[in-house]
């Protein structure tokens, strides 16, 4: 793992550790998204994945000593907010019509 760029304050914790944590979180989130049947839980898992990526960005930002990374995280969080609002609204509407949010029971994307 190459260290930080020259001219950037060294980190007490090896950046690689952060990266590993991030990827693991991502994997966990992915597993959740694939395994859960409750739409809300899936959504939660996706949020987790988003945050894993955020962590990745922060780490790289720190490694490069570049604020841009944090900027991107900021945007991701904001977009996530919008996405959550709409997604949850969809689930509410869905529940109203189908009385469930179990994605296996709602196979609508079908001919």
């Amino acid at each position, binding site marked *: 793992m190459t260290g930080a760029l020259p001219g950037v304050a060294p980190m007490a914790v090896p950046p690689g550790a952060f990266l*590993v944590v991030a990827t693991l979180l991502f994997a966990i989130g992915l597993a959740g998204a694939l395994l859960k049947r409750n739409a809300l839980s899936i959504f939660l898992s996706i949020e987790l994945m988003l945050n894993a990526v955020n962590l990745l960005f*922060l780490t790289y930002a720190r490694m490069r000593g570049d604020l841009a990374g944090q900027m991107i995280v900021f945007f991701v969080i904001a977009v996530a907010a919008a996405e959550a609002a709409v997604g949850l609204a969809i689930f509410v509407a869905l529940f109203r019509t189908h009385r469930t949010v179990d994605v296996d029971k709602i196979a609508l994307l079908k001919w």
Partner: protein
Amino acid sequence: MPALSGELVVFGFASFLALAFALLMVVQKTPVRSVLSLVVTFFGLSVLAILLAAPFIAALQIFVYAGAILVLFLFVIMLLNLKEETADKDDRPVQRTLGLLVALALGGLLAGATLRAPVPPRGPLTGPRIPMPDEIPALGRLLFSDYLFAFEVLSLLLLVAAVGALLLSKRRFE
């Protein structure tokens, strides 16, 4: 591997917290509980963010994610009054096993790839250097100069999302 410093301890603790509760979130059957475990995970993440010299992002994480988005989740869960996932027997074993495998495989792949990857683009630094004592003004300046367009678009997106959510969750039929 540097010596066991305070920072390292904090890192270990925080990351453990994050990972453990993330797992908990996935295995949890009760939606409410998984939400809560995710909240804890986010705490861990925000601690990590502070370690990465991004206190603002850390606070944002708590404020927006834990404080708003996940509360929204809780709110919806309670509104729909979702109890435990009904019928624990998953009628799609293939999906289950395959999903698990793929998830693990991808996780491994990504871990490997990220570790092998060099520090991403070695171009000139766009923003000012971190860590710095107070990065918030710098962030603000960046936000309203280089990222202004993105920022405006974002505001538009939020507006649209708000309207859309309102429209979707409005009771049309009764």
